[in-house]
């Protein structure tokens, strides 16, 4: 029972979400907010791996989201739909529903490789330098996309809605809810497994004392690269999901503001805490929507809130603790591995 409680809970949650969307109890607006919650959970937990667990300061998470979004969008549009840029679909559109997860994963891999490319030079330096390099990388990626006219340049790239329609030909269900849910769960499992293994605990050792980690036999360079690649790869998957949720990507939506949003979520939720990142992603998404009537003042209210939190709880909501550390009794009811 203990072993099954989390999967059962997840299946129930997924069926409720799918059911509510299928019977149109919740409208598209609320569905989109739910989708954004999932995407933001992936974004914040993956950034948390580098900024919270490893103690480095990566500021260019949106760059990796952009790579994943573009690679998977281009791939899915080229493979499954008829488009002006790529012509006839390369594969029968009926395969869209099955091919989509692979497309997402390819986007993730592309992001991870970009992450590797950036990590190799930047991990020779430390602390502030990594922040500067990742900001630069974010701009390089955005500028590169703007200058590739074939994929829309500054106008953006669209056509992903047709991929969703192609999926719906296969079965008339809210596909995006399913995919976002599955990949969110997968991300949390990946990060959780990584951080609970002895290999992953080397990441914590690096944050706490890098020199003693290296001397005690932790291959710090390698583990930093691997962690950065996992983080950027998962960000790429978030990007792919984002692109297909919105149905349209624009380089502007992956600029430094998006990276800042990711940072805000990590620091709000508490560094190094998976449950904290999940919680803050949900709160942050809701807050963005609830404060929408304030329009531009929203971007005064949210930073203000962040300042207040940093004043009274500088370690974030959870701060290097998981939910099970705060409520130890929870451990009786589940076993999550």
């Amino acid at each position, binding site marked *: 029972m203990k072993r099954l409680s989390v999967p059962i809970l997840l299946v129930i949650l997924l069926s409720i979400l799918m059911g509510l969307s299928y019977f149109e109890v919740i409208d598209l607006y609320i569905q989109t907010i739910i989708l954004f919650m999932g995407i933001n959970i992936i974004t914040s937990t993956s950034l948390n791996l580098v900024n919270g667990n490893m103690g480095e300061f990566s500021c260019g998470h949106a760059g990796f989201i952009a790579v994943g979004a573009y690679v998977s969008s281009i791939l899915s549009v080229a493979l499954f739909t008829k488009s002006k840029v790529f012509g006839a679909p390369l594969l029968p559109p009926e395969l869209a529903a099955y091919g989509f997860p692979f497309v997402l994963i390819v986007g993730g891999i592309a992001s991870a490789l970009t992450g590797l490319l950036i990590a190799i030079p930047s991990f020779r330096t430390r602390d502030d330098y990594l922040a500067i390099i990742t900001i630069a990388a974010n701009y390089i990626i955005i500028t590169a996309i703007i200058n590739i006219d074939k994929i829309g340049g500054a106008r953006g790239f669209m056509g992903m809605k047709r991929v969703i329609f192609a999926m719906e030909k296969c079965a008339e269900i809210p596909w995006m809810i399913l995919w976002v849910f599955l990949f969110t769960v997968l991300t949390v499992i*990946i990060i959780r*497994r*990584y951080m609970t*293994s*002895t*290999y*992953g*605990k*080397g990441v*914590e*050792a690096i944050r*706490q*004392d890098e*020199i*003693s*980690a*290296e*001397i*005690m*036999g*932790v*291959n*710090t*360079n390698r583990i930093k690269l*691997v962690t950065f690649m996992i983080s950027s790869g998962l960000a790429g998957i978030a990007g792919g999901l984002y692109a297909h949720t919105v149905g349209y990507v624009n380089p502007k939506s992956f600029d430094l503001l998006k990276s800042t949003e990711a940072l805000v979520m990590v620091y709000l939720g508490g560094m190094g805490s998976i449950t904290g990142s999940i919680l803050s992603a949900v709160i942050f998404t809701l807050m963005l929507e609830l404060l929408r009537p304030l329009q531009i003042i929203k971007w005064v209210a949210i930073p203000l809130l962040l300042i207040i939190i940093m004043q009274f709880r500088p370690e974030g909501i959870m701060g*290097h603790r998981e939910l099970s550390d705060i409520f130890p009794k929870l451990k009786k009811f589940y076993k999550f*591995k």
Partner: protein
Amino acid sequence: MSLLEVDNLTQLFSGLCAVSELKLALEERELVGLIGPNGAGKTTVFNIVSGFYQPTHGEIRFQGRNLAGLKPHQVSALGITRTFQNIRLWKEMSVLDNILVAQHYHLGYGLGGLFFRTPRYLKREKDIRIRAFELLEIFKIDQFADEKPTNLPYGMQRKVEIVRALSSGPKLLLLDEPAAGLQATDVSELITLIQWVFDQFDLSIWMIEHQMKVVMSLCSQISVIDFGKLIASGTPEEIQNNPEVIKAYLGDDQL
């Protein structure tokens, strides 16, 4: 062949000569000391041996293998581990996790195994956990397995650091001032502990220590360095009566 041979070791820090043409050898199953006044270059020697600095000149051979160009984690994988003068445990990890992570190089599974929880991964994780618990038990600190090191008394933290250094099964253990900051009662306990480690484990110990009581009662051989140069080496009795040493280190006081 000696276990560790230090040959003509020289370390310059932008002109400052921290270690100069040092020549030393350590045999297997030996407990030896390295002493010298403050700033003599003792810790620098340890930092070079553990791979943290690359020496300007000279060579270090461990079991006949040249350590030049090896990263610290590779040196530790070969079987040289150390403790630090100012305890450098990972402070926010439990004592058990500290011991586990120190076996990082010997995990024996890849990332694929980790994410898919393959039988090999599960077995290896279990093995290193069992080994860590065995170590904690024989050092009688298993009741602190889930404590953070910072919650332990200073002497206990020293002990944990020694256990951490032992967990990867080293051939050579470097102790950098193990008695620094300990109270007199803890010091005698530490002497017993180090002697016990030396008797129980198949390794050599090389220690830097300021407290004469510790070095004189433990080490069979002692090397003395001053300004990076070796000025004397021999048994504790010889060192105590060596006029060079008395001049450089002990002053005019008799031991």
